[in-house]
Structures are given as C-alpha cells and as structure tokens.
C-alpha cells in the first residue's frame, strides 16, 4: 500500500531527519494530512487556552485539537475540563461562541442539553429513549487529559499519552522563561488574533522551532523601518538553538534583539530592569539570553516568542491552509502601562498586520503554492543547516545546544513527526 500521492510505502521513506531531508509531500499530500489528524492531532498535547481566560465557574473558551472543535470549561470546583464541541445526536456544534459564561450548552438542532461537564441533562421527548437510554456513554466526548502548566492549558484526546510534564520533558526548563519569569505568573491581554494563511501548519511550526536566520532576509525591512533614519548599519546578534527532545525546540538571540523592533522605552526598561533581574533570581542566569528574543515550538503546533510575548497555535485547516490563533501574554504583576505597551508591541510586530508577521504569510503561502507542481513535490525540503556541527559543550541547560544559526531543532521536530506518523499504537509514547 502506498501513502497518498507520494508513491512510497512508509513515512520513513519521506523523512531522513538525521540528514535533514524532508519530502515536500508531507506539506501537501491529503492522505498524509489525514494521518496527521489521527496520529498527531488526536494524540499529542496541544494548547487549549490560558487559565486567565476562564477565571470563574462556567467561563468557557472554544479551541481546537487538530480540526476537532472543543470547549474548555471552568468547573464549579475550579478544575478545568474540555469536551468535543459536537452533539452526540447528529453532530451539530453545541457551542457556537468563541468564549463566554454558561450553565451548560444546548444544541440548536433538536435541543439536546448538556451541563458544564458535558453530561446530557435534558433531551426533548426523552421518554422515547426509554429503551435506548442516553446514559453516561452519550455525554459530550471528553478531552481525555486536560492539564495546566503554569497557566497554560493543554489537552489531548489520547488517554495513554504521557502526563503533560513528561510530554514537555526538558522543554519545560526553557518554557519557564516565558511563564515563570516573574513571581505572579502570566495572563493573556487583548483578544485573539485569528487569520488564515494559505500554507500547511508545519510551515509555522518548523519556523518557530529553529529559524532565527530567516529574520535577516524576511524581516530586514521591519528592522530598517523601526531604527532611526541615521542609525548605523545594524549588527545582527548571533544565535543558538536547543533541541531538547520530543520534537520541541527553540532558537534564541545571544545579543539584544527586541531593541531592533521597538523604541518603546517604557517597555524596554521594564524588560531590562525588572524582568531579567527577577528571572535571573528565580530561574538562574543560565537562561537569561533567551529573554533577548527566543522562538519556540512545543510539538506539534504551539509556538511562542519570548521578549515579544506572543503565543500562538497553528491550527491545521487541510493540507494547504492553517488558522493562526495568537495572543499576547504578559506578567500579571506588571504595571498596567507595561501590559498595554506589550500588547501594542505585539499588534505592531506579530499580529496579522505586524511589521514582521506580514512577510511570513507571504513567504509561507508561496512555498505552499509551488507544491501544486508535480516536480516541485518530488523535492526535499533542506533542513541541513549546521548538520554535523559540534554541540555547545559549555551549555548549562538540558538538550542539544548548538551555537550559531542552524536547523538542528528542525531535525528533531521532523524526527518526532516521523516517529508519530510511523506508529499507529500507543507504543509511540515509549520513544523519546
């Protein structure tokens, strides 16, 4: 049996992560996309929201696990649960809203009503189910595991998936730079920016997992625009990457980078004089460089930028499209004017109108467009930058740390992708 249009029998034949070769079929093939929905998005932990979005009992937000719509609800006891946003009768959505507060959810088609936990509480003409009882098994399908990591809510449909902390593994050490840098933790401010990019979700994920070097081509116009007219030619800081395992990864700048994209003195002063010293006290100094600006992907599709403080999900929307859902995350203890400044910065740089974000949408959609060609699809994506380069023997943090711009975390991302796609059973969780 062959997979999709690619003519190969195994996903292994499409990806050689050690050599950094990834068949472009994985960005376009409908059959491979269907496999992703099953083997990645129905199994992996994915971002559902932030606890600050649903502080009170009954607060809910709509989210996606892969293409499956889910509702994430704060329960009366303060816990958080999630369930498929699908009525068990005919499959209509039981919640049409982006967010809100509700005692329960009811389907507009035939009026089946569910409580906050997703249990059926009322069905019109219920007496006609006397011999076909709508018992517990007919509740809205629960998200098998829901857990928070320092305010970030994740969920998975796989009851056999490892715990969230085990899934994050060594990535948690680096994720703390985003969510544990100050005493009070974090919260989301502003609403979500949501937009459709005409490219496969992996273009976003693999960019944020490793790609600092695209900035010097893709985003140079933004840096030129923000710097004063009489500024000296900029010295771009060097970078480093971390491949912590699990398909996760990050890239960060070794020198000042946020300063290249904003001139907001209030925000920069807060960043240098409040965030970094407090973070160094809490987390140690070893991770400090990541505050310069770091780009992260938590496998498969949750990404964020430290410094800018934007978090986002690359929601898969078929092989050729994704929906970006992004938010601004701030320190809860920050003064209001700093929160406002952070939000303004994200809206100016990394919203759909962002001085930097705009060009990613252009580039990724055109990468996707060339996949229409048969010959173009036969090519491999070259994920070979830094192949064979030595690891940083002096690095203090966990994982494979490599200095200089490189695509080592991308090789980790696609190796994990290959493992997940190759293995239809829960044995996959035994691989690291």
């Amino acid at each position, binding site marked *: 049996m062959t997979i999709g249009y690619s003519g190969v029998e195994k996903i292994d034949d499409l990806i050689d992560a050690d050599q950094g070769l990834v068949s472009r079929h994985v960005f376009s093939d409908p059959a491979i996309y269907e496999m992703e929905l099953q083997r990645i998005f129905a199994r992996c932990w994915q971002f559902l929201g932030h606890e600050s979005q649903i502080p009170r009992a009954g607060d809910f937000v709509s989210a996606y696990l892969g293409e499956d719509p889910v509702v994430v609800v704060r329960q009366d006891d303060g816990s958080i649960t999630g369930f498929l946003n699908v009525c068990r009768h005919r499959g209509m959505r039981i919640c*049409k*809203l*982006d*967010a*809100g*507060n509700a005692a329960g959810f009811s389907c507009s088609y035939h009026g089946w009503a569910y409580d906050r936990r997703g249990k059926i509480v009322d069905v019109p003409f219920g007496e006609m189910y006397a011999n076909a009882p709508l018992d517990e098994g007919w509740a809205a399908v629960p998200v098998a595991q829901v857990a928070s990591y320092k305010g970030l809510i994740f969920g998975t449909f796989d009851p056999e998936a490892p715990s969230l902390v085990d899934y994050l593994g060594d990535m948690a050490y680096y994720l703390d730079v985003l969510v544990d840098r100050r005493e009070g933790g974090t919260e989301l*401010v*502003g*609403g*979500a*920016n*949501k*937009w*459709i*990019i*005409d490219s496969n979700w992996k273009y976003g994920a693999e960019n944020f997992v490793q790609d600092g070097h695209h900035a010097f081509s*893709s985003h*140079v*116009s*933004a840096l*030129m*625009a*923000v710097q004063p007219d009489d500024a000296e030619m900029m010295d771009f800081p060097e970078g480093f990457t971390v491949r912590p395992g699990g398909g996760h990864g990050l890239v960060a700048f070794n020198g000042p980078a946020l300063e290249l994209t904003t*001139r907001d003195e209030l925000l920069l002063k807060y960043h240098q004089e409040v965030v970094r010293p407090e973070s160094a006290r809490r987390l140690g100094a070893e991770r400090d460089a990541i505050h310069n600006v770091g780009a992260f992907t938590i496998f498969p599709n949750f990404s964020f930028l430290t410094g800018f403080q934007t978090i986002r999900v690359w929601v898969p929307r078929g092989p050729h499209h994704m*929906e970006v859902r992004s938010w601004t995350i701030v320190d809860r203890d920050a003064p209001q004017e700093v929160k406002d400044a952070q*939000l*303004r910065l994200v*809206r*100016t740089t990394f*919203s*759909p*109108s962002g*001085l930097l*974000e*705009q*060009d*990613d*949408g*252009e*580039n*990724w*959609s*055109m990468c996707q467009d060339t996949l229409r060609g048969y010959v173009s699809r036969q090519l491999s994506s070259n994920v070979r930058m830094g192949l064979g380069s030595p690891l940083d023997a002096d690095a203090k943090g966990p994982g494979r740390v490599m200095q200089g711009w490189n695509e080592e975390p991308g090789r980790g991302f696609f190796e994990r992708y290959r493992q997940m796609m190759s293995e239809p059973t829960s044995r996959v969780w035994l691989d690291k």
Partner: protein
Amino acid sequence: MTTEIDLGAGVGHRGVSADLQHEVEQFFYHEAELLDDGRFREWLDLVAEEIEYTVGTKPTVDPFSPDAVPPSLAFEDNKESLTWRVKRSETGMAWAEEPPSRTRYLITNVRITPDAAGLFVRSNFMFYRNRLETTAHFLVGSREDNLQRGPDGRLLIARRAVTLDQNVILSNNLSMFF
C-alpha cells in the same frame, strides 16, 4: 447650497450641509486614491500627529454579554508606528507587498456628525486586493473617524477605528492601510 435633511431625533446628520458632505466625501476619495496608488507618504500627511489608529475584528460572542472576549485588534498604531509602516514599504524588501498588490478602496455610506472637536464621521468600505497571479482578498468593514482641521483648514484624521466584518481574517496578512 445648504440642504438640511431631517432624519428624526437622534440621527446625527441634521445640520450637515451638502458642501460639508461633499468635502468629506472628496477627502475620503482622495485618501483612497493615494492608497490605491501606493502614495503612502502623501497619505501620512492626511494623518494628525496625535492620531489613534486601530483596526479590529468581531469575535462571535453572546450579544447579551459582549464583553466576554476582549477586543481583537490587529492594528493599534500612532503616527510613529504608521510612519514605520510607510518607511518599511519604501525599503524594497517589504515582501508582503513586494512587488505591490493591485488594490481598490470603495468608500461609502458616509455619515457626518459635527462635534466640539471637529467631525465624527462613520463610513463603510470595501477593499479588494489582488496579488501576483491569482491571490485575491476581499475585506469589508466600517470606519469611525474623527476629523479635525489643520492650521491651513485642511481636514486631518485625528482618530480612526476600523472594524472588519470578519472573525477569522481571511487573508495571509493585513499588509494594507484602512
């Protein structure tokens, strides 16, 4: 010529002369032409120094609890950041619009309410962008403007709040002005 149209109590068009209506509409048409032609520096001259400029979307929320979701803004700009956007477009490396798209702004439903600070003007717009070969985006929305007169009597945009009639923006980016 002064034409006063009585649309009833609470409707803000009373007392707006045909001349004023004409002037504001011509101002908007001129602005649209500058944007369509990529004359962004000249467009910036129509923007007051203290401008508050926002572009947002409409989340899907319960009409009885509209505050359930904070406003989703894709632009929150002042004159400085609008100038960055224009400067970026002049680098030749602003790839989202390099080479430039074909764009067309249609401005309509112009409703003027004079206030103490100048003019409060609501309008609707349709915006079409056609890019490279077959890429096409179509954005529709409303604008709320506060217009003021500069020292030379010219109209200036002192505040603009745009609302796109979308929740999930159906475009790879928002590399245009509104």
